[in-house]
């Protein structure tokens, strides 16, 4: 058998719901690991990405660290996928785009109820926020978009197996219907 494809995943500004949904493929995960080897991913806890065939990104770009992780993924993955609504559109975190960053930080750290030591944090450990949340295709080039909040386990399975086998992917209506 030829060498397995390498797969990496990351969550940027998302809720990990998309990753949880990837686990909803249930026992098919055993088949999946026959087909691919997981590289950097919350599932493996590998922190540094190696050369990969497929990269999956959950969540949008909200801070400087998101930008760096995303660019690293782009540099290391042959194919990069925007996975779920937040990666595709910015999603729930992008609701803050209606406000200025100042208003958001003041609400959280200065004016909010029950806040102690009221100040906007300045610790260099904390990733710097971008003034708006962006979909990932505005920062790097993306090859495929898989919609859903989150995409269902079945949709992920249809998509990944098609991609791995090099077939054109066509999702049945039931898998991209959300009401």
């Amino acid at each position: 058998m030829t060498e397995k494809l390498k797969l990496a995943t990351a969550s940027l500004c998302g809720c990990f719901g998309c990753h949880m949904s990837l686990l909803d493929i249930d026992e098919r995960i055993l088949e999946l690991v026959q087909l691919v080897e997981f590289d950097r991913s919350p599932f493996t806890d590998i922190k540094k990405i190696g050369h990969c065939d497929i990269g999956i990104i959950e969540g949008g770009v909200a801070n400087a660290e998101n930008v760096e992780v995303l660019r690293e993924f782009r540099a290391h993955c042959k194919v990069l996928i925007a996975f779920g609504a937040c990666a595709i559109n910015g999603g729930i975190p992008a609701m803050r785009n209606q406000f200025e960053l100042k208003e958001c930080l003041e609400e959280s750290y200065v004016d909010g109820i029950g806040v102690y030591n009221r100040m906007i944090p300045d610790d260099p450990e904390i990733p710097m926020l971008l003034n708006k949340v962006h979909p990932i295709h505005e920062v790097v080039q993306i090859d495929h978009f898989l919609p859903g909040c989150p995409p269902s386990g079945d949709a992920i399975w249809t998509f990944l197996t098609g991609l791995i086998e090099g077939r054109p992917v066509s999702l049945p209506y039931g898998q991209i219907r959300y009401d």
Partner: protein
Amino acid sequence: MVALPDPEDFTRELLVASNSDRGRLLQYLHAIQQRYSHIPETSVHQLALALRLSESRIRGVIGFYSFLHDTPRGDYDILFSDSITDHMLGSRVLLGDLCTRLGVEPGLPRADGRVTVDVTSCTGMCDQGPAILINGQAVTRLDNFRISSIAALIENLTPLDEWPSELFEVQDNIRRADILLSRGSCGGGALRALVEKGADTIFGEIATSGLRGRGGAGFNTAMKWKFCRAARDDEMNDRVVICNADEGEPGTFKDRVLLNSHADDVFEGMTLCAGIIGARHGYLYLRGEYLYMKHALEETLAQRRRDGLLGQNILGQAGFDFDIEIHLGAGAYVCGEESALIESLEGKRGVPRVRPPFPVTHGYLGKPTVVNNVETFMAAAKIALEGANWFRAVGTEQSTGTKLHSISGDCDRPGIYEFPFGVSIQQVLEECGAADTLAVQVAGAAGSTIPPAEFHRSIAFEDISSGGSFMVFGRHRDLLDMVQNFSRFFVHESCGFCTPCRVGGVLLKDLVDKVHAGRAGTADIQELHRIGTVVKLTSHCGLGTEAANPVLDTLGKFPSIYEKHLTQADYQPAFDLDAALQDARDLSGRDDAGAHIRTDL
């Protein structure tokens, strides 16, 4: 400003005066907006109770229309027409200037509530721009002097009805008249012909004339009327005639001129249609931007009633009953689409219906309904009077008669031109005094971009069809400005009902902005092609199916306007990443390495 009556009393009076009619919801909201510069909570509550609608339904309507607001605008609410032709005449600079003079941010009321300055889609004054609407009234031919007078009038709190009347002058600018515009008014002649010769004979004339709709799609008018007549075989005459005067296509203003100077013929055409199909109710759906004409139009209707040309027993014929009511739109281009127009006329959000069934069988309140353009009704009236042969004598085989063109942009004589169908683009350019032309945009933002190599082509349904917008772009223009303006227009005007147009439109706009900012690579151009095609193929109504035209047309015919903006790289981020951290740096006071985007990646 003088103290206003309590909105509760005002709303109650509105409701009482018209028997709390649900279909009038938009008209009530319009009146309240005009008076209070927004729709107060109490009014929403009252309307909900009186019309037995939920409050959220009413808020949904307020949210849909650009001219309705749930928070107060300034006492003087100024909207700059944001058409590309207004830009070309310098509107952006004037907008900046007015904001500076008045000390306002665009879109936000001044702290004292005196004034707001904002933009709106094309107001139909492209031949005499830059133009604004102020509290709904049109002001044209803006220049520095007019801007400074307006600023002074506002600072002095001069009531609008005491402003110099020349500010509100709107010109017809008819530059070329052919068979339609060179004749005097029908003056009831078309209706007398109907009564004397009978409906079948006159219908026969309309059918023989080959008249096709002037709103853009070019559907055969006689066939539409026949379908509507046949849709119900009772003799209740419970059909409806609607004149589409929404005229929202950027660059079109010929319906404005017809309603200003030939309204009598337009109403005559509607009445003729009613007589032929058997209708008792008619509506003129007038775009909100043309509010300033409403009073005069109502006068014309009143005069026709006095002359026995409207109302009960028209021309003394027992049972020939027909009357026309004017409904105002409220700043929504999609309401020009006939089924959205009907929704709006019923007092709802203007979301296009699923068709079929078509309005001819299930239209206003489910009744068989004819919707025609202003120019179509006028032409029908003239045909009834002058005969089919008179009409067929000009034009082409499949496009008989003439067409009115609204010409604007880089030419010496912008205005209204009536040409026989089949006229070439080149001929039109010569007559309007356009030299050194880079491109012509025919049929508005939803139309097509024509390069010089195709100026020999003709305007007719057989070749380039048009609803009447003709915008000229001179050699010195960057056509990408036009594409950007149109992409923004479609995003603003999408009704949001279907995903390809709602989301695809934004993706297109963002990509065009990216090209414009010099950040796009070849991959982005492929993406524009791909998304444009999806939007075109999968949108629900004509707005979405045409929204990608400016992008797709110019990608095909003017690739250089994109190429010259492209970066060498295949791909670049859509925005300046490090600059996007500036707010966070300012707020946290940090400037360490981690407070910048790493450049070594």
